[in-house]
């Protein structure tokens, strides 16, 4: 299939082609870029929602009930559920679908699991592109679930229109949650497992803690803390409304911020790719003795290397 056939298939709502396209984007390289170019100009209009928080907080369960609510309102939903790869084998066990089986046969729901492939880096870039592809698939909502630990996960959250941080009372350690910084980047803190004893108190602690963050001049984006239960569904309709009611102005602002980040990431990878190109490496070794001997000003060497690298347009460089 050519990149434009693939793009047309995605946009026509063909789910098999969508699934294939996601694999191509996930794998990266020239095929991914050809396809993403063919998808341009960006056709989608989905609202992009990030859901993050510590393992076991109930993110997948909450996504499941959010999808249920969205479906009751006639909204179609794509879910991208990201779990860490094993640092030992490079493999991954992706189990988020277990919590979402009730949507398995619903044609208005598309669920995709993604491994974070730690060693390969660039997770946030790939995820951003996968969200673009899901968006192009015509969904009303695209929800990205990711474990709230580590820099690349935080980066993913920053690419969403709005983000819910999910915490649960049983996990107790709110201090830890605050320290990790995930709370600051969210729009809503969701205290899940509201059916468990102590949940309301936990919510109050969070509210109190947030007061402190804001007073100290923190840059918290959070403006609300809500108590829900994925198990009973309590509070979930209101949460969905809260998510959907994010104003167009705020979304626009986020989009601008995330485009900036995405572009910045792309430039950084392109530059990293340039550095690794053969010609640059060759010149580096060629110039080093000349620089050392004082025969070549370092600035001239740098300019020549950069120009040569750009000219050679290496695989993995400026593609």
């Amino acid at each position: 299939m050519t990149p434009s056939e693939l793009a047309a298939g995605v946009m026509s709502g063909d789910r098999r082609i969508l699934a294939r396209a996601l694999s191509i984007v996930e794998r990266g390289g020239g095929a991914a870029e050809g396809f993403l170019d063919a998808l341009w100009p960006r056709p989608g209009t989905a609202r992009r929602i990030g859901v993050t928080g510590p393992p076991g907080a109930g993110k997948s369960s909450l996504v499941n009930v959010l999808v249920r609510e969205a479906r009751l309102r006639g909204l179609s939903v794509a879910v991208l559920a990201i779990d860490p790869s094993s640092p030992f084998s490079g493999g991954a066990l992706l189990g988020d679908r277990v919590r979402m089986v009730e949507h398995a046969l619903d044609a208005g729901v598309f669920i995709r699991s993604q491994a974070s492939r730690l060693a390969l880096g660039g997770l946030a870039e790939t995820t951003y592109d996968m969200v673009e592809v899901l968006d192009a698939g015509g969904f009303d909502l695209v929800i990205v679930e990711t474990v709230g630990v580590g820099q690349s996960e935080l980066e993913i959250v920053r690419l969403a229109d709005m983000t819910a941080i999910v915490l649960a009372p049983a996990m107790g350690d709110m201090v830890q949650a605050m320290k990790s910084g995930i709370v600051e980047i969210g729009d809503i803190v969701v205290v899940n497992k509201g059916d468990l004893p102590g949940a309301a108190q936990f919510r109050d602690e969070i509210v109190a803690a947030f007061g402190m963050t804001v007073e100290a001049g923190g840059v918290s984006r959070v403006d609300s803390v809500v108590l829900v239960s994925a198990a009973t569904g309590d509070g979930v309709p209101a949460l969905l409304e809260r998510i959907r009611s994010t104003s167009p102005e705020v979304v626009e602002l986020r989009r601008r911020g995330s485009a900036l980040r995405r572009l910045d990431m792309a430039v950084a990878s392109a530059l990293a790719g340039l550095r690794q190109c053969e010609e640059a490496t060759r010149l580096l070794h060629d110039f080093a003795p000349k620089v050392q001997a004082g025969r070549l000003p370092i600035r001239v060497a740098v300019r020549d290397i950069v120009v040569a690298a750009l000219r050679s347009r290496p695989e993995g460089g400026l593609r």
Partner: protein
Amino acid sequence: MTRKIRVLVAKPGLDGHDRGAKVVAAALRDAGMEVIYTGLHQTPEMVVAAALQEDVDAIGLSVHSGAHLTLFRKVLGLMRDKGLNDVLLTGGGIIPQKDRDALSAEGVGRLFGPGTPLKDLAEYITTEVANRRPLV
């Protein structure tokens, strides 16, 4: 660089526990694969819908209910309906040799009995997937 093999591991049918399927899922992860685990009580329709969305290279079914003939046939038929022709269907359970032969003649991959070293399963999937969908 070779790509990661994606495998869906599911436990169709009504029988109770998924310990075996989880052990298999973990073993395949340890062999470097990305394993999508969907849990218990999956209908053939659910298995194939998930396989399509996840764009997996292989589906592994754990079947101990005795309903293997029906289940594998149903899943294979749905895979063909959905155009998942290059996806390997394999699995395990207590399945008599003559049923394995029958299913394999119909297009199901190798089926593994209890006690098969999990390394063999991973090797089989790797080889078989390479024949169907290029790994590089």
